[in-house]
């Protein structure tokens, strides 16, 4: 039982990482008033670009870097549509998801053809700061990216949003863009910048899956994780630390499912029940949190001066 729990904790941290990265990215853009439904596609694109660049260049880190850059570009595209053109955010975000999904599949087929077994690459090695020590060794056996996400990205996101001038602008733009404009801050610039940051983080989340967790790229690699990230942002009330909590809840359910499958238990219910469980839990969490969710007042509203 103890081993089961320790393995579960380790797995939770691992599977939470990509969703947490994406959710922090979404937190940035929603804080400034943009719902980025492109998240699912950007994660997929990040996974694809990361994989193909790493495969062709032989460098996982280079793959990750290019994936992040592609996410930044995708975020800027969302900016053109939702910020400059003021298009409905639901439709433009979904359009970006469909576009990037199509582009990734197109590119993958172009480069690797229609093979029956997907190509694989050696993935990131995990760090083992405590070696094979019991308990601590297992839990800390994680990818560097997981360490960075939990120990750097989340605190940094919190610091930026609540303790910097830029964060003040982000929060204000999401609540009252007119006020920000009247104060002489460029609303468009703030929104474009958060979309770029958010896109980069979402793509990094996708690339984590293809470069660390799987070492491969498959059609089902994201499987709705982007939508889960959006739910988690609401659940976490747009605060990075609470969002981390939400990601851990989802990750925990997902890891539990993985562990149960790995144990090869013969259960009276289909294993898909466990696969679907995290999504069900996310909906329940959303309902519970939704009651006192304080949406950024300007979310979904394009800003026009005249």
């Amino acid at each position, binding site marked *: 039982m103890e081993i089961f729990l320790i393995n579960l904790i380790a797995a939770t941290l691992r599977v939470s990482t990509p969703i947490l990265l994406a959710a922090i990215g979404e937190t940035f853009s929603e804080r400034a008033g943009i*719902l980025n*439904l492109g998240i699912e596609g950007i994660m997929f694109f990040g996974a694809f670009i990361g994989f193909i660049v790493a495969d062709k260049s032989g460098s996982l880190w280079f793959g990750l870097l290019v994936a992040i850059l592609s996410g930044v570009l995708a975020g800027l595209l969302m900016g*053109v*549509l939702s910020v400059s*053109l*003021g*298009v*409905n955010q*639901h*439709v*433009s975000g*979904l*359009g*970006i*998801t*469909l*576009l990037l*999904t*199509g*582009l990734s*599949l*197109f590119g993958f*087929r*172009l480069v690797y053809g229609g093979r029956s077994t997907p190509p694989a690459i050696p993935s990131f090695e995990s760090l083992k700061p405590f070696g094979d020590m019991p308990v601590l060794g297992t839990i800390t056996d994680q990818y560097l990216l997981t360490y960075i996400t939990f120990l750097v990205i989340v605190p940094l996101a919190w610091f930026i949003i609540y303790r910097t001038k830029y964060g003040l602008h982000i929060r204000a733009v999401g609540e009252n863009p007119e006020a920000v404009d009247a104060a002489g801050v460029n609303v468009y610039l703030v929104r474009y910048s958060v979309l770029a940051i958010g896109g980069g983080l979402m793509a990094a989340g996708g690339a984590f899956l293809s470069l660390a967790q799987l070492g491969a790229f498959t059609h089902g690699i994201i*499987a*709705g994780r982007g*939508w*889960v990230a*959006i*739910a988690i942002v*609401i659940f976490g009330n747009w605060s990075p630390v609470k969002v981390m909590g939400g990601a851990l809840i989802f990750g925990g359910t997902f890891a539990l499912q993985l562990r149960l499958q790995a144990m090869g238990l013969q259960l009276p219910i*289909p*294993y*898909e*029940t466990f*696969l*679907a469980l995290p*999504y*069900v839990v*996310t*909906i329940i969490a*959303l*309902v519970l949190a*939704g*009651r006192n969710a304080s949406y950024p007042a300007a979310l979904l509203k394009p800003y026009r001066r*005249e």
Partner: protein
Amino acid sequence: MDNIEKPRWRLVKTDNPPFWVKPLIPILALIGTFILTSGLILLAEANPFEAYYYFLLAPLQTRVSLLEVLVKSTPLIITGVAVTYAFTSGYYNIGAEGQLYAGAVAATGIGMAMHGIPAIVALPLMLIGGFAAGMAWALIPALLKVKLAVDEVVTTLLMNSIMAYIVSAILNGPWRDPNSGWPQSQEIAPSAVFFKLVPRSRLNFGFVVAVTLILILWIVMTRTSFGLKMRAVGLGKPAAKFAGIKVEKTIFLAALISGGIAGIAGVAEVAGIHFHLIGEISPGYGYTGVIIATLGSLNAFGVGLAAVFFGLVETGAQTLSRALGVPVYLGEVTQATMLLVALGMLLLQRYKFRRM
């Protein structure tokens, strides 16, 4: 120091665009899309002009492929209509994909039980069952929306993922056809199969259903008080409420109708094309339905037109893939690109050039 600025052309906002702007938008969007996607064709080492021939013109030249365009457009019409009901009422149902699968599951279940039962009974049962299943799958997000104000975009999306696992569980479990190496169900009864409209083609009764749904959509939106209520709620919730329209009820009904119709798309795919349930009934028709509803400006005939055009794009993508080896996913990229380009163009409608 007198500087009277010379008059020059400026972009100004307008409520009444000149009459020639509207028809120009789809044409410009089309051109824009193909300029943008030609880069991908070049990447695939094909000649763009040759590629466009296979992509857009070749499918229109043989009877078989022409009918295939209609076959491909059938589920797109239905999901487009489904999404239109919801979006018109301001309910962002992105769950048509899951609702489609719910309908497909119901159709398979009913269809497998129809042995010995005549088509005149079986077909209506399939349609009703599919509608009910789609509606049931739309129920939870709709209830959460109107009762607890939980954002429907996120819940409908999550419901799609859950449905995918349910289908997988069914196919790997109780319904798995023991004679097949793949997770798929047994075939539905012959009487539950949609009859062919044209012999030696795949065009079937499902297309009739789709066209009927378009006509119904048109009548509901333009001729009924429920249609006017949906439009009023979608376009101005406070005003609709003030005028005494029951806003929550209208949204709830629209959400359920939307789900039910998406369910019928699943019925049409099972009974018209596959004859059994597989995990890949839909390559994302539910999401494409959102694009179609948007491109069709939530107008019945616009939706029909957009869906048939997308059917052409899908058929063409396959022709192109066979002829020149350009990956078939070019179709999806083209559809999404067209949405984004058209959205940008629609905004141009709101501006005009003026010399002043």
